[in-house]
């Protein structure tokens, strides 16, 4: 191996030299349909996720409009149930997960100094399965039997009472699962085999670490979901009785199986968010991440614990007292590594030279509001209290705090952070900040009153409610409409940044940014790191971790 010793600025000139030999495919179909380039596929994932975000968001608007006041005003109860179910399926599998895969595609090769993902053709296939899966899922809304209406958990016996469209739902879930598994295989194969020489595991950026762990979670739990829905399919159409009590099956078994998948799924959506926030806070605090190694171990601990706490979702089903105690304490244990993370983010900011650009605002918003979601999760972990909270709006408030100002805010933070790198243009900081403040205020108006609704006993997944819940529901809906509308600002900022912005972004973009992606010009050349970069303290953030 011949080694040329160069440093940061020379990397940039080399990368710019690469840019002269870009070899971008010509023609729309060649560029986007047949692409094997990690940056193009990352862009496809992100655009698809944004489309799904607005599709699922439109369904949320229908839900909040119906709940604006008591009584049935806008939609039939069955359609309302279809909206709640589809909103969840689309947001989880169509928006948040593909968005993180989009970030992984763009960033992982750039962050570890690899020329591309390890399996580029499979990467193309992983993405292009998704539009077909979601076309199939959305088509059920136009079928005689309507879309799925039993909730995203698809609990039998209710889900088995659906019509012929149920088969489409199951196959759509299969296709999403196949896409996720292939994406995860690619992430693991890339990280384990394609790192630049010298990029040891404990020098990797936190975002790469969190994705590596997320990918293992996905490979472990997606086949379980696929198996469970396959059994539902045969129960529905082929007369088996895995979960059908009438034939000797056990519907409670489905709940155990679903949540064995479902709880790690929550962490699949939040671990990459931890990674993004761990990149952004050091940049804008202008300090190295506090406790890098502890952050890696905390992420792995959270992932491990996510496998052994599933039954806290089903305390009310009934289980032995020892089971209740075990799942309660095991769930509470997750607060320890999560607390380590929150402590380390705050410690990174402590006495830093902080500035508050839009990515940092979203990252700080994430830390504060995700913590609220985490604390209400601790309340739900208490078995005796959960019997009161279960299936109420308290649960809805809890998981929306984790997923919206949690995962979605981290997605926004990451998008603003890397958008100048990806496009070569600066976005409008003024409109980014307007987007943040409207989102941060409205998301609390939307979800905070739902805690009170839940504590007062309002059940989830109902289109009508007692008049005592009217005021908080109206406030929540107003917050929802503002939050929904404010996301159009985000689209405006992106379109402006890509097509109109005249302010060119430098290679490093942010003064405090450190990592391999920042030694490339903005935008990076179509084929980057064909020659692996040198890994040293000037190019990576965690070089001091070398042992």
């Amino acid at each position: 191996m011949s080694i040329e010793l160069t440093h940061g600025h020379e990397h940039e000139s080399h990368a710019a030299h690469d840019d002269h030999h870009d070899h971008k495919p010509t023609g729309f179909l060649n560029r986007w349909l047949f692409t094997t380039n990690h940056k193009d596929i990352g862009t496809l994932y992100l655009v698809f996720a944004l489309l799904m975000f607005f599709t699922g968001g439109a369904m949320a608007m229908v839900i909040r409009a119906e709940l604006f006041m008591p009584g049935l005003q806008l939609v039939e109860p069955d359609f309302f149930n279809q909206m709640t179910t589809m909103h969840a399926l689309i947001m989880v599998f169509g928006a948040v997960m593909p968005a993180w895969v989009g970030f992984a595609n763009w960033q992982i090769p750039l962050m570890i100094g690899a020329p591309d993902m390890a399996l580029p053709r499979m990467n193309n296939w992983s993405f292009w399965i998704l539009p077909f899966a979601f076309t199939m899922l959305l088509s059920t809304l136009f079928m005689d039997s309507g879309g799925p209406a039993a909730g995203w958990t698809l609990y039998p016996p209710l889900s088995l009472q659906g019509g012929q469209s149920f088969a489409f739902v199951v196959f759509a879930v299969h296709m999403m699962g196949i896409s996720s598994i292939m994406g995860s295989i690619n992430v693991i194969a890339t990280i384990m085999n394609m790192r630049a020489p010298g990029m040891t595991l404990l020098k990797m950026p936190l975002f790469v670490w969190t994705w590596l762990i997320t990918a293992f979670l996905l490979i472990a739990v997606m086949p379980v979901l696929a198996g469970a829905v396959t059994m539902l399919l045969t129960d529905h159409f082929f007369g088996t009785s895995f979960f059908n009590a009438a034939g000797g099956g056990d519907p409670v078994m489905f709940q155990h199986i679903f949540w064995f998948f479902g709880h790690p799924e929550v962490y699949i959506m939040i671990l990459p968010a931890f990674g993004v926030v761990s990149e952004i806070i050091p940049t804008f605090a202008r300090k190295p991440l506090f406790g890098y190694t502890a952050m890696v171990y905390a992420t792995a601990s959270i992932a491990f614990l996510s496998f052994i706490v599933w039954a806290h979702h089903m305390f009310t089903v009934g289980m032995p007292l020892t089971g209740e105690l075990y799942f309660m304490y095991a769930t509470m244990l997750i607060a320890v590594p999560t607390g380590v993370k929150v402590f380390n983010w705050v410690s990174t900011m402590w006495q830093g030279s902080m500035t508050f650009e839009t990515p940092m605002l979203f990252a700080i918003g994430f830390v504060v509001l995700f913590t609220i979601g985490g604390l209400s999760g601790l309340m739900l972990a208490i078995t005796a209290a959960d019997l009161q909270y279960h299936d109420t709006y308290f649960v809805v408030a809890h998981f929306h705090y984790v997923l919206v100002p949690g995962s979605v805010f981290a997605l926004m933070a990451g998008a603003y952070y890397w958008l100048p790198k990806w496009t070569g243009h600066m976005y409008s900081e003024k409109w980014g900040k307007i987007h943040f403040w409207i989102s941060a205020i409205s998301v609390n108006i939307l979800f905070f009153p739902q805690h009170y609704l839940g504590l007062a006993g309002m059940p989830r997944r109902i289109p009508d409610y007692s008049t005592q819940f009217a005021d908080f529901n109206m406030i929540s809906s107003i917050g929802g409409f503002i939050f929904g509308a404010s996301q159009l600002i985000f689209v405006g900022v992106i379109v402006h940044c890509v097509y109109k912005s005249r302010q060119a972004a430098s290679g490093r973009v942010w003064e405090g940014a450190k990592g391999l992606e920042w030694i490339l010009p903005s935008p990076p050349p179509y084929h980057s790191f064909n020659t692996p970069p040198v890994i040293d303290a000037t190019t990576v953030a965690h070089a001091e971790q070398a042992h």
Partner: protein
Amino acid sequence: MQQLNRDEIAARRSRALKTAWLLAAVAILIFVAFILSGVLNS
């Protein structure tokens, strides 16, 4: 800059493929074992 030679690139590609096949086998094994356990238990 560190130049990787053709043999090293080929070795990387081969290792990546092995990793991918191994992970795919694990995923399929979980799926099949899961369904089988359901069938045998019923």
